[in-house]
């Protein structure tokens, strides 16, 4: 072996052990550089031998053959390559796109609020009320996908040794099993409807939506299947819709609230003639001011109902409350402290009425009227034909046609009469045109009941009850003395054209006297 030449040829392994490089320095005797020498050098470095190495060495020697060491300097050629390892991926939970968007928006809003910055220029043109930041999910809704941690793929160095891959970290994602289920395929599904809350590495669904501050631009409009609790108030022009009940601790401004069950306002609503409250069941409030309220069952107000339009299908139970201005329609009983005001605010109270049902009765009566007229006309025409003694096939044809018309109209009337009877029975059952005033019934107040309208010409001190007597006349009962006075003695009476009169009803449906 020629030591000098031997020193001018080497095989070195890279620090990451993924490459072995042949280096030939200038000054070497070119004849010294052969496959045996290179192989020996490789083996000395513990490089894995085999056909691949042999092939690479041959290629190196071919490349060396044309290589001018003097001109170009040292010759280098990679004669062996390893395979890098692939580290495993950490586990990941990816939110569904629509929820991710809301999450992003929520973060953005929070950041803006923190820094007290304005919205982006792009955002300025959008209605922020519509862009809710609350992740509302339905039962059965897909929330996202879990990607489990992977082990990674090991590599091999040039010496044939394994390069171990780093496995991914399996994060301990905690999904509340009561409200969320994780399937084997990684799908994450909501078990209940509610608000999806992601906190750190845990997630759960709260069936109650709790808004710690205001419903405003930071929350957007709310449309939630479960109960909604708002700890502050609700700002102008915002909407809160709940599939159950809504509770608000602070002030409701000119906003719209819709609850399938109850609405509970620890304060009240200041609607400025725009705000609305719609409850499938009860409304409880401290006060109602200039709002439109539709109550499926009872209305309970502590302080006052002022300048509101209210329709109550149950009763008004507000013995300490004043009803001033506006129009309150109640199907059941009405109890309050005061009706009207000393200043003369025009207050209308319609008793034993449910406007929606009234409208239905009126429409049905119209239809029945049209059908009755059609049947009567056909019958009259049949009579005309009958009066004509001449028989002819034309006359017979016409009689048949008219008979059919009359009977068709009568048969169409039947289901309408049944519907009317049902509706009317409902009104009669629930209708209790009784007003109990514990304090004062003010002059100028207008009470409508039993088809009459009474505008009180004097203030009457309570406790008193206004109701209909046996013949349907309005009477005022002094609850202290028990005396009964016809309302006509203390009010100006006139017919209430807004109500359908019992006389309009078909005879069979009028309540027996």
């Amino acid at each position, binding site marked *: 072996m020629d030591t000098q030449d031997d020193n001018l040829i080497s095989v070195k392994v890279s620090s990451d052990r993924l490459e072995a490089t042949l280096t030939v320095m200038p000054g070497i005797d070119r004849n010294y550089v052969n496959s045996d020498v290179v192989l020996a050098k490789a083996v000395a470095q513990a490089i894995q031998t085999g056909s691949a190495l042999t092939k690479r060495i041959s290629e190196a020697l071919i490349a060396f053959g044309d290589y001018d060491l003097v001109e170009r300097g040292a010759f280098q050629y990679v004669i062996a390559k390893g395979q890098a390892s692939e580290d495993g991926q950490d586990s990941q939970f990816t939110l569904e796109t629509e929820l991710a968007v809301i999450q992003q928006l929520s973060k953005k809003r929070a950041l803006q609020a923190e820094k007290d910055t304005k919205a982006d220029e792009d955002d300025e043109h959008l209605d922020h009320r519509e862009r809710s930041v609350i992740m509302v999910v339905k039962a059965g809704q897909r929330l996202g996908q879990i990607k489990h941690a992977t082990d990674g793929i090991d590599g091999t160095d040039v010496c044939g040794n394994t390069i171990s891959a780093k496995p991914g970290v399996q994060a301990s994602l905690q999904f509340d099993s009561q409200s969320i289920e994780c399937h084997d395929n990684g799908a994450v599904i909501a078990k209940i409807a509610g608000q999806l809350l992601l906190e750190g590495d845990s997630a759960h669904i709260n069936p109650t939506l709790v808004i710690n501050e205001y419903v405003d631009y930071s929350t957007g409009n709310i449309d939630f299947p479960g109960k909604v609790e708002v700890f502050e108030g609700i700002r102008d022009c915002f909407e809160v819709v709940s599939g159950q009940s809504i509770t608000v601790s602070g002030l409701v401004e000119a906003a719209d609230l819709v609850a399938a069950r109850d609405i509970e306002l620890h304060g009240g609503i200041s609607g400025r003639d725009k705000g609305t409250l719609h409850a499938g069941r009860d409304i409880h409030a401290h006060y109602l001011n200039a709002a439109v309220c539709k109550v499926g069952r009872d209305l309970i107000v502590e302080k006052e109902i002022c300048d509101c339009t209210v329709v109550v299908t149950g009763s008004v139970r507000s013995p300490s409350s004043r009803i001033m201005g506006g129009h309150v329609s109640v199907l059941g009983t009405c109890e309050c402290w005061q009706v009207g005001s000393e200043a003369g605010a025009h207050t209308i109270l319609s008793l034993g009425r449910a406007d929606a049902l009234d409208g239905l009765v009126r429409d049905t009566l119209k239809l029945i009227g049209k059908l009755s007229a059609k049947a009567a006309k056909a019958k009259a*025409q049949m009579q*005309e*034909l009958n009066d*004509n003694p*001449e028989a*002819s*096939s*034309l*006359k017979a044809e*016409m009689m048949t*046609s*008219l008979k059919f018309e009359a009977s068709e109209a009568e048969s169409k009337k039947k289901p309408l009469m049944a519907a009317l009877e049902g509706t009317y029975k409902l009104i009669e059952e629930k209708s209790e045109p009784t007003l109990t005033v514990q304090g004062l019934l003010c002059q100028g107040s207008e009470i409508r009941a039993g088809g009459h309208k009474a505008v009180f010409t004097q203030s009457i001190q309570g406790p008193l009850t206004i109701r209909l007597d046996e013949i349907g006349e309005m009477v005022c009962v002094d609850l202290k003395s028990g005396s009964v006075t016809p309302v006509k003695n203390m009010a100006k009476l006139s017919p209430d054209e807004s109500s359908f009169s019992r006389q309009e009803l078909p005879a069979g449906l009028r309540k027996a006297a």
Partner: protein
Amino acid sequence: MKIMLVDDSKTMRSIQKSVLGQLGYSEIEEACDGQDALSKVGAFQPDLLLVDWNMPNMDGITFVKNYRQSNKTTPIIMVTTESEKSRVIEAIKAGVNNYVVKPFTPDALSQRITETLSKKAA
């Protein structure tokens, strides 16, 4: 069989005449309005009349009422655009035996004519 056609439209009279021709009726008298018809019925003595409603000088209903004062039995078919039930009843009350609404197919008209004449025969 003598048939009188009372219609202000010559076109309609031609069409009706053509249908009657197909049915084998050739003794046909035409009148252009109720007045004209009244002046001709006495001499012609039709066995059947086909009368339009809306005509100048005297409309079809007025003619029928007048005609029925002296002749209760000769069958009259009203051939008109008036299709409302109240109009048909008015026509029956006036004394019309059958009714054809314009537009009509020749088959419809011939069917009404045959029906009216067979009823009269019965």
